[in-house]
């Protein structure tokens, strides 16, 4: 089976790996927004008492790995996954064998030792995804979904990034779809409905106050207290972390909200209910507001210590408004009659 692998650039690495692998296996309809929507990628969580890079632990998306598994499951695609504990030799042998068989393989890696990332972006983040699609002169041919072009990794670097340690350690994790059969329009429609319902449920009804739309308010309430609790400088750094989680390479802008709006627009092509387009507009508005809140936060942390409590209140109020708007939008999605 010698098919040519085609590199596709996407906003987010896991959406990208999902899209590229499924398209390679003949599912030409697959796009990044569709993968994101079918996999219910949109989310929000603020984990208390946990620090990431000395700042708050906030995420705008669901757990790493879930987008790929949910999307494949809803399309009836079987997924093979393998982890190798600490056995680097077995992990290498397995990858080499698959490449020899001509099977492009998704790989979970840490970015701290990823040589083609600029130093400024190399943190201990272990849930990055890339696709290995060949080997040439002892180097792996890499399709990293966030990159414009293909790249490569030496065997040594490959082992290092596949066996990065710490939270979410990849342990050599590789994955690929198998025996992919053609997918009917009905299955895609069903998948879209399931993906939307699951996102609405997660954002509206997840218990506790740290996740879903309540989680956004939770962050807003923290922002109101940060300056007094942490001092002006550290509070500014915390806001910077919020903005980076929201806007850094990988989110498609506005903390994945534009991506979700694009998904709803695309869903309309499968399920011609015009309300989908209206709700897509709602999410575009929400995404724009997230961007506006980033601008407001930027004004604070650019001034370092020259900030006032009233500046933080403005940010918190914006997030509260966003939480309300997202709540309304997800309520509309929940009530939507999609057949």
């Amino acid at each position, binding site marked *: 089976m010698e098919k040519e692998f085609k590199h596709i650039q996407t906003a987010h690495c896991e959406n990208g790996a999902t899209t590229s692998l499924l398209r390679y296996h003949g599912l030409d309809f697959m796009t990044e927004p569709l993968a994101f929507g079918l996999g219910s990628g949109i989310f929000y969580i603020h984990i208390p008492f946990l620090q990431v*890079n000395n700042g708050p632990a906030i995420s705008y998306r669901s757990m790493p790995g879930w987008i790929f598994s949910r999307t494949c499951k809803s399309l009836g695609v079987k997924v093979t996954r393998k982890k190798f504990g600490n056995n680097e030799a077995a992990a290498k042998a397995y990858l080499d064998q698959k490449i020899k068989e001509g099977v492009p393989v998704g790989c979970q890696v840490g970015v701290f030792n990823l040589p083609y990332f600029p130093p*400024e*972006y190399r943190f201990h983040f272990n849930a990055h995804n890339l696709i290995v699609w060949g080997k040439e002169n002892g180097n792996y041919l890499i399709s990293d979904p966030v990159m414009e072009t293909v790249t490569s990794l030496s065997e040594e670097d490959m082992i290092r990034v596949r066996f990065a*340690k710490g939270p979410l350690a990849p342990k050599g994790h590789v994955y690929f779809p198998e025996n992919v059969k053609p997918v009917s329009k009905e299955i895609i429609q069903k998948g879209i409905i399931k993906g939307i319902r699951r996102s609405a449920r997660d954002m509206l009804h997840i218990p506790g106050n740290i996740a879903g739309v309540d989680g956004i308010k939770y962050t807003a309430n923290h922002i109101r207290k940060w300056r007094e609790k942490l001092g002006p400088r550290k509070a500014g750094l915390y806001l910077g972390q919020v903005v980076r989680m929201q806007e850094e390479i990988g989110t498609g802008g*506005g903390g994945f909200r534009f991506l979700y709006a694009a998904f709803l627009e695309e869903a309309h092509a499968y399920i011609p209910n015009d309300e989908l387009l209206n709700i897509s507009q709602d999410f575009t508005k929400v995404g724009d507001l997230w961007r506006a809140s980033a601008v407001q936060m930027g004004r604070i942390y650019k001034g370092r210590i020259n900030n006032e409590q009233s500046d933080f209140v403005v940010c918190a109020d914006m997030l509260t408004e966003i939480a309300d708007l997202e709540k309304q939008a997800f309520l509309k999605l929940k009530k939507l009659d999609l057949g």
Partner: protein
Amino acid sequence: MKKEELPQDESALKAMTRELLYVKDKEGKYTTGLSTGWEVKKAALDNAWDDIKERVEAARLAVKNGEKSPVYYFMELRLMDFPVLSGYTGFWTFNIKRHLKPSVFKSLSEKKLAVYAKAFDVTVEELKNFKG
């Protein structure tokens, strides 16, 4: 966000790639656009790195003044927190915290020093002889 409003500011991404974002075209439909960066998030990343540099410098001084062991310095230098260092070394956080004390560090076996050196990507000599 409209495609023509997509920021094209210079950023650290320059050395790697332009990033892909979801934007609206002139007909109001979603499309993708490439961006070289956005100054709002560039400032956030720059600040984070200024903070890291300050932390590393503070750690260096703490080692120099005999308050902390070299493990503390290299931990900051490699952007590690306890869960990450624990992952790389296999040592419990409780023990790593003890190893941050200069007195305890002095009594560490060569074997344990080698584990730390590997985690920090330095030689045992560099680790042992770091004076701040």
